[in-house]
């Protein structure tokens, strides 16, 4: 995924890589784009833009390596460089704090939000999706990559250009926030026993 040796592909090879290694990930890519932007048209633009870039830079991709991670990295960079710049104010999250907290023993003493497995079973609508979408985009991203797309920490570190330790602490914080949201839902839905 780094600036590896440039490959040389014929046009047939390029098309084969594109069709067999890139396109099979398009639903995941669209889902990622949608979860980042929370807008269907923006997601569509982002996916299209990513695939056009992927084709343009196909010779930096080594056939048979992790195409999905490569594509996700391009999409995430496009999102940051082209999309987020236009729309987003700087993140208010203090990541250093997130990391220090994660590596302290306090992490075990944190109050787990009042949430039970049973109340999750009743969340059959959009609750979980809304809870995810309500997270700050950087927290949302790590949950998407890990829990929806099953990337390993090492792959996530490469996609996001952050150290593995940061992947872990961010993921932990993201899950904690997600649980808080879900427990709010559980409360408003009136699960007295939750």
């Amino acid at each position, binding site marked *: 995924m780094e600036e590896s040796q440039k490959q040389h592909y014929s*046009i047939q090879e390029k098309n084969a890589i*594109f069709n067999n290694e890139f*396109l099979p990930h*398009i*639903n*995941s*890519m*669209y*889902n990622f784009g*949608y*979860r980042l932007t929370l807008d*269907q048209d923006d997601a*569509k633009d982002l*996916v*299209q833009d990513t*695939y*056009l870039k992927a*084709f*343009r830079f196909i010779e930096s991709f080594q056939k048979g390596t992790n195409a999905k991670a490569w594509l996700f990295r391009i999409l995430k960079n496009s999102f940051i460089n082209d999309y987020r710049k236009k729309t987003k104010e700087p993140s208010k999250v203090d990541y250093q704090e997130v990391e220090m907290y*994660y*590596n302290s*023993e306090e*992490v*075990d003493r944190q109050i*787990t939000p009042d*949430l*039970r*497995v049973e109340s*999750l079973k009743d*969340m059959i609508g*959009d609750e*979980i*999706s809304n809870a*995810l979408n309500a997270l700050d985009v950087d927290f949302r991203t790590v*949950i*998407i990559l*890990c*829990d*929806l797309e099953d990337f*390993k*920490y090492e792959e996530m570190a490469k996609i996001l250009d952050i150290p593995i330790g940061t992947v*872990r602490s961010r*993921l*932990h914080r993201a*899950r904690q926030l*997600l*649980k808080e949201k*879900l427990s709010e839902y559980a409360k408003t839905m009136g699960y007295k026993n939750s």
Partner: protein
Amino acid sequence: MIPEKNPFVQADGAKPTCMQMLQLILDDEASEEQRLYFKNHMDSCMPCFKSYSLDSAIKQLLKSRCCNDSVPPGLIEEIKFQINQNTAS
């Protein structure tokens, strides 16, 4: 065989917290030895046991409810058309 030494201990000797161990288990990042150790640990650590059930349930719920968007019709054709245009010129 349950490992006697905690296999989660880092190279620098830092003792892992329950949450850090749990996370590696949950995300399938733990070694076989670590999994064995944690299974045993969970039997005597209620917070880990509770968090493990809750966290895996959330993980499953996320997967089943947030991955269902498929790409809008026509987008693949549009992308292919664009590429053909670009390569032809």
